[in-house]
């Protein structure tokens, strides 16, 4: 089809676009709101905030989560903080600066209109969350404290110890719970989306599977919001929670929602290195640690001495050396690749020589143990639990790991996917971070979408539908989708092969990490694209799922998720192969500057790649959305 996508950016100057949109958007009368049903899938930051706000407005909301409770979503694991252009520190921050930082951090692969709106509503988020009782860190005078984060030269990050994501999610969860208690939201827990139903080109509802009973049922609504998170677990080893998956987005994609920029996957520079083969996941150590920790490796490769015995003169503080103005706070993609290069050259530390040092001895000397303890105590404790070493006395060992996925369902300015009536919010959509996300911006985006964007854009869509009937769950499309879902899950149970879904997931992850990870090459991607279909067909022939489909069966759940990861993995590699440039987190070795930095090709690739499902991810149709930069000037990123 290869259409040029229209993002429906409102008219006007950049800073007026959102106001213009709101002024023009159609509204639904308060008394009529209860006539509309909205389904929200996922109860993380974006989902919970959207469901709570829509219910407060008066819509009938059905919220779905595969967790036992809405409080478990992986937003909870975000540690460092949330950005907002409050300029409480008076250090030169402004909405415009946050906008520019985000565009630049995303390596000019995001949409100006969306990013500017994000920067605008960022201020409202902090107000909202404080009113809800989120215990953000405070100064002694009682005002809010800020810290700085990678990719910014101002302190605009609000935080609650090392548990900012937890506190924000609990805030949103509490608002959602209030609505559940009042009857405004019906919450379906331990219920997983297995299909999206489209009738006459409009999203009419969803098909879900009850994880406790295996029962498959349909739910019809006027609009559906996907707030189902990212797909980082395609790598098997990532910092995502074990149950994070792409199924919801992928099922929407298969029903006609375009999937954008799948190759933009972010590698987080500060994670605890893998310790053995059996490891199930990697753990992130907040980027905020880079505020006070200094990153170094021994100057001599294969220096096996313990860190405290290596004198200053034999240490290479490589980020401070290479990027003097940002130093240890260089953006994530840049820090990650620098670490990888040094480890590849044999400068790695630790038993497997697979990490770099993050050293706090200077900070402890400068600030005192108490201050360091107060700022990072819980992170240090977490590190100690996992690595079995005390970071107060020996440097932490860190290494990059997959963390966040900028790609996702393509959405326009209204967060609507290419299926009318289907929306995507939070990490599930592709919208605001371009090719690389800045630290502390994920929480900001999730809450912006859920609290301050969707409630406005959904009414614009719903208003014309007042008093018009919508298809019910008796509609043949629902019945057919249910049958397909039942057949799919019965299919997994009946393959009768020899390998568990986890085995396939691990093999899939290795291929994706090796060829579509931190550095990608044409050759590697082609190899991946030849290996993946082979492994996928083996998956279909040799899968073994024990147990039954009528009670809790985590093996069966996993099988369905791995199936979708396979298809996504192929699309990711295809996209990475197609994008013949390096930008942000997407680094193609063929396209780099003499100093090893990403080399963009603005002439040919200043666009969003959005793929259409054709039945085979290897042959997905590529569509483009041209990116125009009117305010921010296309420039080479430099953090030197």
């Amino acid at each position, binding site marked *: 089809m290869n259409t040029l996508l229209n993002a429906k950016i409102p008219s006007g100057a950049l800073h007026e676009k959102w106001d213009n949109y709101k002024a023009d958007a159609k509204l639904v009368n308060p008394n009529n709101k209860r006539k509309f049903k909205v389904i929200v899938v996922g109860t993380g930051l974006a989902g919970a905030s959207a469901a709570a706000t829509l219910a407060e407005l008066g819509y009938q909301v059905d919220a779905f989560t595969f967790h036992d409770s809405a409080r478990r979503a992986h937003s909870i694991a975000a540690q460092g903080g949330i950005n907002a252009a409050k300029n409480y520190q008076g250090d030169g921050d402004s909405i415009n600066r946050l906008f520019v930082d985000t565009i630049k951090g995303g390596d000019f692969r995001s949409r100006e209109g969306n990013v500017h709106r994000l920067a605008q509503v960022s201020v409202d988020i902090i107000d909202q969350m404080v009113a809800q009782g989120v215990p953000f860190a405070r100064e002694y005078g009682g005002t809010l404290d800020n810290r700085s984060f990678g990719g910014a030269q101002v302190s605009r990050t609000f935080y609650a110890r090392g548990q900012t994501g937890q506190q924000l999610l609990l805030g949103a969860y509490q608002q959602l719970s209030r609505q559940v208690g009042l009857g405004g939201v019906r919450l379906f827990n331990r219920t997983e989306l297995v299909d999206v139903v489209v009738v006459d080109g409009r999203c009419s509802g969803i098909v879900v599977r009850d994880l406790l009973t295996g029962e498959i049922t349909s739910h019809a609504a006027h609009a559906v919001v996907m707030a189902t998170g990212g797909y980082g677990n395609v790598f098997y080893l990532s910092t995502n929670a074990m149950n994070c998956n792409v199924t919801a987005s992928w099922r929407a994609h298969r029903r006609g929602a375009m999937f954008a920029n799948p190759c933009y996957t972010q590698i987080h520079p500060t994670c605890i290195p893998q310790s053995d083969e059996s490891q199930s996941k990697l753990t992130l150590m907040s980027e905020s640690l880079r505020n006070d920790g200094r990153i170094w490796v021994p100057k001599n490769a294969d220096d096996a001495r313990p860190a405290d015995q290596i004198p200053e003169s034999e240490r290479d503080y490589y980020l401070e050396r290479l990027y003097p103005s940002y130093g240890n706070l260089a953006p994530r993609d840049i820090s990650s690749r620098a670490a990888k290069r040094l480890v590849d050259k044999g400068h790695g530390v630790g038993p497997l020589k697979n990490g770099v040092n993050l050293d706090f001895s200077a900070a402890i000397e400068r600030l005192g143990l108490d201050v360091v303890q107060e700022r990072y105590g819980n992170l240090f404790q977490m590190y100690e639990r996992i690595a079995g070493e005390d970071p107060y006395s020996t440097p932490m060992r860190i290494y990059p790991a997959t963390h966040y996925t900028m790609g996702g369902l393509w959405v326009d300015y209204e967060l609507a996917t290419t299926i009318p009536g289907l929306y995507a919010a939070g990490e599930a959509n592709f919208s605001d971070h371009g090719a690389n996300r800045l630290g502390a911006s994920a929480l900001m985006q999730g809450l912006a979408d859920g609290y301050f964007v969707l409630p406005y854009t959904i009414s614009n869509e719903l208003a014309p539908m007042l008093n018009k009937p919508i298809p019910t769950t008796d509609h043949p499309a629902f019945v057919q989708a249910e049958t397909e879902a039942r057949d799919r899950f019965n299919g997994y149970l009946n393959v009768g092969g020899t390998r568990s879904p986890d085995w396939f997931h691990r093999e899939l992850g290795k291929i994706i990490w090796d060829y579509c990870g931190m550095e990608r090459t044409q050759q590697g991607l082609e190899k991946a694209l030849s290996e993946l279909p082979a492994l996928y067909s083996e998956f279909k022939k040799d899968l073994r799922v024990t147990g039954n489909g009528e009670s*809790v069966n985590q093996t069966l759940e996993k099988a369905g998720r791995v199936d979708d990861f396979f298809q996504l993995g192929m699309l990711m590699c295809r996209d990475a192969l197609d994008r013949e440039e390096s930008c942000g987190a997407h680094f193609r070795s063929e396209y780099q500057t003499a100093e090893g930095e990403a080399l963009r090709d603005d002439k040919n690739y200043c666009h969003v790649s959005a793929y259409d499902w054709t039945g085979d991810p290897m042959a997905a149709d590529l569509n483009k959305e041209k990116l125009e930069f009117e305010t921010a000037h296309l420039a080479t990123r430099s953090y030197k």
Partner: protein
Amino acid sequence: MAKTQQTLTKAGKSLAPRQPVTGTALSVRKKRSFIADIYSTAIGKKYAMAISGIALMGFVLFHMIGNLKMYLGAAELDHYAEFLKELLYPLAPKGAVLWILRGGLLAMLALHLHAAWSLTILNHQARPVKYQSPRDYEVANFASRTMRYSGMIVLSFLIWHLLDLTFGVVNTVGTDNTFVKGEVYANVVRSLDRWPVAVFYILANLLLGIHLRHGAWSIFQSLGWNNPRFNSWRWSFATVFALVVVIGNISFPIAVLAGIVKL
């Protein structure tokens, strides 16, 4: 105990589709009078435990202090007993105040027992299926885990103690009743001179001490008397209080057996 979860059948399959969760905060609670309303909650019953506990603690402390008169001789102790009967006399008739105090104490005891009884039932219902493997408690101590047993033994001792030294029906040597109304000192010595009685007395008081140690601390917690500055004192208070009562009480049978206090 309201069952909030969805009921599933034996095979783990549901009869009907699980219902979504909604409107959980809309139920209206039964209207009760103020006191009954508080007492209907577990926390309210804990208040009752604490308040009645304070009254009973006052009783054991003053009971012990009064009995110290024993060391001053028969006349002093008997006179003290007479004084109790004459409290506020002649404003009130003889014995009236004592009976009011006794009534109050009995009411407090009844409240303490009722609250303990209903909380125990609640707690059993809260975990109908016990852990099938041994628990490894981290901080729950002997005192806290045996409150209901130490309490029951102390209660049975109390009943026996009343029968022994108030009503005198079990104050016997062989088959002879040795109880003489008004001769408090003599009654005590004759009773405690029997070593099985003295041992029972000592054991019951040790259990009372254990009960008091946890109970006296719990009062602060249950009533919400919490102040970071004084929190460490709460344990010290409980320990000292329990020790004072136990040492005082146990000294009596020992003194009698050792012949320090004799007829």
